[in-house]
């Protein structure tokens, strides 16, 4: 970093804030060895899996539950996203499921007794062309009809909300307007996982890391347990909540799912003074940015075009993302990139999740959250727990069943979900 005046100042505020982070308890979850048998085994120890375990214990009174994680807790997409939370989706089914999740976020810290820096700083989604304006206004009206908080902002109103944004007309992608969801925001993603892990563990859930599921014991189309790198474990019910590897697990259980796995990248800058107090997304130019509590700029890119399990993406995708970010925010031109990373997202043909039953009895699946699963963490866990406990889906996730690809009742959210999360 140079000392030229137009360089962003290093974040003194950021460092003060970091010092103010609450202390962690000495132990977040119990360290246990896997037992021989469980009522429910959840495959995948990310946010969605841990939330599923927590709500199974809290809402449905189960406690003989294990969460199996092949790596370390929340080391996959839970730690690799840009933490954006919103519910302004186009279709009724999506609006309902994401709004349910947003409502859970609003009381989650109290519910878990654990701080996770949930901050409703608003989410702005920019429109850059005539057709973009039409589709965003369509979303805006759809949100209004579904009772979801949403505003339409002119470029001048956007500028008032985000003073550092460039709204001049003579750029490649001028800002023609934006939708704004004031209740949207961000949270501290690893703390979300830790909060769920602690609360689930306190209710008796066993969290077992470093244990990979390598197969399933299935008799008469009914799951009996899982084979793991640490030996077989019997289970009454099994839930696959392993984004990035859902197809692999489904194939091990003998069925196919309409999922393709792609890299999705993001990056952060060093800590800077606060210059951005809301979340800004632009699907058209493939960038979304917020400034985290400590002061780092967090930016997400688009997915890579090809299937991959490598947890890294192509440089040209990052380049494209930063070019767009610099046009929107010229002040970022002197900011540095501290770190980039990739996660593997499971994408369904209609860019909507799959939550529900599978062709194997007592085996459930939760996948396809694509590029936007973080915001759904509480709702996804809540609904998955309901589905597992009752053996049938809740009204909110019934439309997101695997059989929608046979009936043709797709929930096409490419517009709202396609890239920008």
């Amino acid at each position, binding site marked *: 970093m140079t000392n030229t005046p137009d360089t962003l100042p290093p974040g003194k505020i950021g460092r003060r804030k970091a010092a103010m982070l609450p202390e962690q308890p000495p132990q977040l979850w119990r360290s246990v060895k896997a037992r021989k048998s469980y009522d429910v085994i959840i495959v995948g120890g990310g946010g969605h899996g841990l939330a599923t375990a927590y709500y199974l214990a809290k809402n449905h009174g189960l406690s003989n539950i294990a969460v199996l994680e092949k790596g370390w807790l929340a080391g996959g997409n839970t730690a690799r996203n840009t933490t954006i939370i919103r519910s302004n989706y186009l279709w009724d089914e999506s609006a309902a499921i994401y709004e349910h999740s947003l409502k859970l976020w609003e009381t989650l810290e109290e519910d878990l007794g654990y701080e996770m820096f949930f901050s409703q700083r608003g989410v702005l989604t920019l429109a850059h062309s005539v057709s973009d304006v039409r589709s965003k206004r369509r979303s805006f009206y759809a949100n209004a009809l579904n009772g979801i908080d949403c505003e339409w902002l002119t470029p001048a109103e956007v500028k008032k909300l985000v003073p550092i944004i460039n709204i001049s007309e003579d750029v490649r992608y001028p800002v023609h307007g934006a939708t704004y969801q004031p209740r949207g925001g961000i949270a501290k993603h690893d703390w979300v996982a830790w909060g769920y892990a602690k609360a689930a563990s306190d209710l008796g859930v066993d969290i077992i890391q470093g244990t990979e599921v390598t197969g399933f014991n299935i008799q008469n189309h009914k799951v009996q347990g899982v084979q793991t790198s640490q030996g077989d474990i019997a289970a009454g019910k099994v839930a696959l909540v392993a984004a990035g*590897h859902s*197809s*692999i697990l*489904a*194939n091990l259980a*003998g*069925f*196919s*799912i*309409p*999922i*393709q*796995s792609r890299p999705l990248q993001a990056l952060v800058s060093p800590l800077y003074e606060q210059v951005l107090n809301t979340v800004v997304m632009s699907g058209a130019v493939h960038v979304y940015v917020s400034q985290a509590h400590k002061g780092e700029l967090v930016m997400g890119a688009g997915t890579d*075009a*090809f*299937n*991959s*399990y*490598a947890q890294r993406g*192509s*440089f*040209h995708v990052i380049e494209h993302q930063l070019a767009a970010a610099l046009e929107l925010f010229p002040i970022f031109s002197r900011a540095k990139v501290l770190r980039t990373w990739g996660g593997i997202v499971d994408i369904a*043909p209609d860019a909507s999740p799959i939550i529900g039953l599978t062709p194997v009895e007592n085996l459930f699946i939760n996948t396809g959250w694509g590029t936007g699963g973080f915001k759904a963490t509480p709702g996804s866990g809540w609904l998955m727990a309901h589905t597992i406990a009752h053996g049938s889906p809740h009204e909110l996730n019934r439309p997101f069943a695997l059989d929608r*690809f*046979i*009936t043709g009742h797709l929930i096409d959210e490419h517009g709202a979900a396609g890239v920008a999360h």
Partner: protein
Amino acid sequence: MLYIPCPHCGLCNETEFHYGAEAGVAYPDPNALTDSEWAKYLHIRANPKGWFAERWVHFAGCGRWFNLWRNTITHEIGLAYLPFTTQPKAPGNTGQEGSRA
């Protein structure tokens, strides 16, 4: 950035290509299929962890489709081959552990 061997133009940057997912999916007779078989043709594509035979089109070059072996863990590139020709064997033994059941 991948360097992709177009069978017609040689090695080119990935940004000159579009992706077409699984190679060798035959077009079925829609009238002969049940709804679930049709759904399988329409929506389900292999998503293996390891070597994958996939389609690419060189839109910024010759504009033609071809098939390519590529490893989805390491991003190694294997052989490129033309559609409707015999598929060469997958390179190495990393296998198709997640290929369609």
